[in-house]
């Protein structure tokens, strides 16, 4: 196992206004540079966990917390959200609510967090240029963010988070409100960031995408961890549907073909290998 970048130890949390714990005593570790996906039905505690990783819990949301979260060895409870932003960043669902509303242009929006840190103007311009290119928004950098499409605004949000130079990105259903093209663009970018060594923690509903991207998947149900494993083993487990999550089409095809004896191969979790498997089975 490589270097651990994120560690959650016996963590529980209950929001002040609810009776039930949103997260019940969970522990896990995430390796540096990995692509870690969290899945589970609505209300299973995914968003709460995301908020805890970036320090919004306990510093922004009020409630009863126990256990510990460490990001890069830094204890979240003892740090400020602003300090944590240099280690871990969060992008969530609604693109419009991730604008600072202090910027007349995309460039200013990207620079907002740097300004709060007191970064010099020269450095700011350099970083904005670099991040805008990475996010493929360099052509709209002088436009008002509100004139952009939802997908573009979400890339501005991702850029504004990434410019703070976190080593870990937490994506909480950040493509739910986008169309397929907009979602794909975000994923391409996220994948390229992951290849550059950024650790990605992603919550997503689309199982095909999760299966394709994830090094490891964690399944949550009712605030508890029910499984952490590589995608193949997660989706192979027949019981997994009990936790109200879907299984990728690829897995269903492979399993049906195997049950009927048309193939002996292990299940596949991506489009191309599944097509190969089916072609092979067709030849008999």
């Amino acid at each position: 196992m490589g270097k651990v970048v994120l560690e959650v130890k016996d963590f529980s949390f209950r929001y002040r206004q609810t009776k039930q714990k949103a997260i019940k005593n969970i522990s896990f570790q995430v390796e540096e540079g990995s692509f870690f996906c969290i899945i589970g039905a609505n209300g299973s505690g995914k968003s709460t966990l995301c908020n805890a990783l970036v320090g919004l819990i306990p510093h922004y949301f009020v409630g009863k917390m126990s256990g510990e979260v460490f990001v890069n060895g830094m204890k979240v409870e003892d740090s400020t959200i602003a300090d944590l932003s240099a280690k871990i960043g969060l992008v969530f669902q609604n693109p419009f609510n991730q604008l600072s509303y202090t910027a007349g242009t995309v460039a200013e929006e990207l620079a907002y967090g740097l300004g709060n840190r007191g970064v010099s103007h020269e450095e700011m311009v350099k970083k904005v240029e670099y991040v805008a290119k990475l996010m493929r928004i360099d052509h709209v950098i002088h436009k008002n963010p509100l004139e952009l499409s939802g997908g573009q605004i979400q890339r501005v949000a991702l850029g504004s988070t990434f410019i703070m130079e976190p080593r870990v990105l937490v994506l909480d259903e950040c493509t739910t409100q986008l169309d397929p093209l907009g979602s794909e663009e975000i994923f391409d970018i996220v994948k390229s960031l992951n290849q550059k060594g950024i650790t990605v923690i992603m919550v997503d509903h689309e199982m095909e995408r999760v299966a394709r991207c994830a090094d490891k998947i964690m399944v949550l149900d009712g605030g508890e961890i029910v499984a952490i494993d590589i995608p193949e083993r997660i989706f192979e487990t027949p019981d997994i549907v009990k936790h109200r999550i879907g299984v990728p089409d690829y897995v269903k095809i492979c399993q049906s073909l195997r049950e009927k004896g048309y193939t002996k191969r292990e299940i596949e979790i991506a489009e191309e290998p599944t097509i190969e498997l089916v072609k092979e089975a067709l030849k008999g």
Partner: protein
Amino acid sequence: MAKISNSFVPKDTIIEELNPMTKILAVFSLGLGTLIFPNSWLGLIIIIGLFFVAYLAKTLKDFTKIMFGFGIPITVMLMFIQGCYSPKNVTIIAEFGFLQVGLEGVLYAFKIISTLLVFLGTFYIMNKTTYTGKLVAALTNSGLPPKAGYLVLASLNVVPQMQRRMEVIQEAQGARGVEIGGGIIARIKAYIPLLGPVVMSALTDAQERGMTLETRGFGITGVKQTSYVEVTQSNLDRILKAILILFFIIVVILTVLMKLNII
């Protein structure tokens, strides 16, 4: 989709290049100068000067519209009220049937009008030629707390999105059988169902926006904030600032001397 309208449109003029603080200084120096000066001649000269500045700022047409659009009705109104009914009236300069127009009232009205127009004109030119981001950056540089700067910018920028949201909510209520058109009472009744979603969505949005700001270091203390928008101070700014300050001092001295009947 509706385009977002911004009151500032870049036009590449000398006035636009000026440091926002110079313009703020101009608003106060000229405005207050006119206010304290005993008669309205100074105001009149400044107003004529402002038309020239508006010309330099390539906004003469709109500026003229605003000045006359506001100036004419206010002049008529104040002239009537002050000219005919001011208790200061002693010297009667004209009579229309039962109405008597007094000189003192007319002069007083002139004074108010010129002061208002100087404030309006300078403020209008500043607003039209200054990008809000630059204004706030300049204010922050000069020591305005970042949170105050944020309030100014965010409240300006959030309005168009709120408007869009209002429209959608209105449509959603129409689809639930609420008549949007009709008489005043029907309209007021129709607005009640709109308020709930507006307030609720504002609350949820505020929470998420708060999260965003926090994760971008809004709460950092002890750091001098920097800004992407560059605010420079040219020699022209320095000269203008000196002139504006000098102008105000001279006006104060002149006023004092005139009040003491020395000149």
